[in-house]
């Protein structure tokens, strides 16, 4: 059994650790590229959302390297993601690939089925070793997300432009080569230390933007055209509403116990959106309010073309923009997205925020605060 899985930001590091610790043979799909997307677009329905297309590309590229089993989470999501595994199985079948699909849906009460798929994947029935590997994977995931956080902070402040990106990219290249939890964690720690010790330029004027929207497009750099690096180079510090580590904790550990860490966010979203409407629409609105209250300079929403929950959020966000007086930009991505147009919008938006900030600063000086 050679297991592969679709890409989703940093998730691949955790899956790698989990399966390597369990001694399962894995194929990490090559980093998402134009080739990946081309393959996916060719074999997917035209109007399906972008993540599915990229997923299909990931599978095919892994199959070329000998993968015969696919593991994917289901999340029981009341959006199209919930049907991904079924649709993807059909697509691969029609292409002539007979693969095993292991679906890891959150238990939702049916623990028997859940453990069956876990033991099938894990190649062992020993719950102790499974739990141990899972704990290690979770730790690794948090570690990689901390690298992200360190990079968000450093990029707009670094003295030598591009030094953060260099370390960041080299981490993602190296981590594929090392094996097992220990080695991955050593690399994580080393990278974090190096990024944290990058020299800063205190003169740089840093603008803060909250990045909100659909989880896959926020965390997968290929899909959002490297928005975090682009913003970083423009002197913007970002914070993301959704992270893969938080998502894992939420869906794997908390939700089965009917708990949530997002209560505060739901409360913030309540005046605009009172209930769950699918996807992460409620979180998008909630985090928009949270960022506005915390004094962020602007909001950028990113979502894949045709994503229903985010379309609803998009129509709500102008009200948040008005109520909290915080500028908002919406970017919709799919395989047709032109990079030049996206760059122009981002750059103009950051200019706008910077001039606003200057003006506010001057007003404060004049009124003597």
């Amino acid at each position, binding site marked *: 059994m050679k297991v592969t899985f679709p890409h989703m930001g940093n998730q691949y590091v955790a899956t790698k650790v989990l399966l390597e610790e369990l001694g399962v043979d894995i194929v990490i799909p*090559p*980093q998402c*590229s*134009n*080739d*990946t997307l081309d393959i996916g677009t060719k074999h997917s329905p035209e109007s399906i959302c972008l993540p599915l297309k990229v997923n299909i590309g990931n599978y095919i590229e892994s199959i070329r390297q000998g993968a015969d089993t696919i593991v994917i989470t289901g999340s029981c999501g009341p959006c199209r993601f919930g049907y991904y595994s079924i649709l993807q199985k059909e697509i691969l079948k029609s292409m002539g690939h007979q693969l095993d699909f292991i679906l890891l849906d959150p238990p939702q009460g049916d623990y028997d089925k859940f453990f069956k798929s876990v033991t099938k994947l894990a190649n062992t029935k020993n719950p102790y070793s499974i739990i141990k590997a899972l704990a290690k994977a979770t730790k690794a995931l948090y570690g990689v997300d901390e690298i992200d956080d360190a990079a968000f902070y450093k990029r707009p402040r670094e003295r030598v*432009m*591009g030094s953060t*990106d260099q370390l960041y*990219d080299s981490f993602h290249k190296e981590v594929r080569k090392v094996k097992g939890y220990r080695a991955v964690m050593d690399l994580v720690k080393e990278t974090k230390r190096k990024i944290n010790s990058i020299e800063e330029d205190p003169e740089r004027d840093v603008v803060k933007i909250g990045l909100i929207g659909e989880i896959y497009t926020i965390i997968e750099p290929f899909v959002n055209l*490297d928005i975090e690096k682009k913003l970083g*180079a423009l002197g913007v510090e970002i914070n993301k509403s959704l992270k893969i580590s938080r998502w894992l904790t939420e869906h794997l550990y908390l939700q089965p116990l009917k708990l949530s860490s997002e209560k505060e966010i739901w409360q913030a979203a309540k005046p605009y959106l009172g209930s769950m409407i699918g996807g992460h629409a409620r979180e998008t609105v909630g985090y928009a309010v949270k960022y506005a209250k915390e004094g962020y300079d602007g909001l950028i929403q990113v979502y894949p073309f045709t994503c229903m929950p985010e379309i609803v959020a998009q129509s709500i966000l*102008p009200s948040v923009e008005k109520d909290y007086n915080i*500028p908002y930009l919406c970017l*919709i991505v799919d395989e047709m997205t032109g990079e*030049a*147009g996206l*760059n*122009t*919008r981002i*750059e*103009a*938006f950051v*200019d*706008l925020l910077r*001039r*606003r900030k200057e*003006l506010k600063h001057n007003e404060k000086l004049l009124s003597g605060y």
Partner: protein
Amino acid sequence: MKNCYLGIDVGSVSTNVVLMDEDKGIMAKVYTQTQGKPIEAVKRGLKEVRSQVSEEVRVRGVGTTGSGRHLAAMMVGADVIKNEITAHGIAAINFVDGVKTILEIGGQDSKIILLRDGIISDFAMNTVCAAGTGSFLDRQAARLGIPIEDFGEMALKSQAPVRIAGRCAVFAESDMIHKQQLGHNQEDIIKGLCDALVRNFLNNLGKGKEILGPIVFQGGVAANVGIKKSFEEALGTAILVPPHHDVMGAIGCCLMAQEYDMKKNRTSFKGFDIVHSGYQVKGFECNDCSNGCEVIEILRDGQVSARWGDKCGKWNGKLKNEVEKLA
């Protein structure tokens, strides 16, 4: 010797070059067709703008904008490289008192920029369709056999404009042909096209935006009195077309270059002599990873002066100058 600032706007259809003096007076301006050859257009623009000024000038700062801003910046040695939205906004703020809305229609894109308290507060750019841009009008004028310069005047003569479906450039064209075949006269069809373009612009870009006066209309299409009239009818208010409406982007660049000069007091301008240099562009596909980036290499007199197009920064990193990083 007179101090001045140079602004270059390399758009898809036109390349505009402006020379502005220290008191924000326009000393010379050139509006020339890009015709898919931005390097030639920039050279031609520089040459012409220089020949319009008889006295000795000292260029204290250069700014570039438009879709070819990086190419132009590399050629002339720009101090400021900015997007079109900021450039147009800054130009309008400086030339029209209290402006609150800018409608801008260029060759390949159209934008709406909202300004409050002298700064840009919101903007939108056309994303999907070219039915609201200058190229579309150009094409339809050509198909009707009228010079684009007379297009607007003819629209004003219309007595009973026809309604043309303006959501999509292709469908608008077939609808227009249909109306022609029915026997409508040209003036009415042209007016109908102007109305359709304005409707499309306001529906696409103006949706949900508070369009307050004073409203400024700029960009190449602002020369078209027919479109201006249609905007005035649709919005029910007077619309201002500034005297240098066709080169506002370049003027914005001059203003930003001046601002930069006041802060830093230096320029990387390479001089007007670059018009005599030979520029070559080479492209190759980097095959080091699966992205297969198309890397562009610009050579000035046989020397590599810039590279771009790669995702990882392997090619552009080494030759990146400070300006580009800041922009």
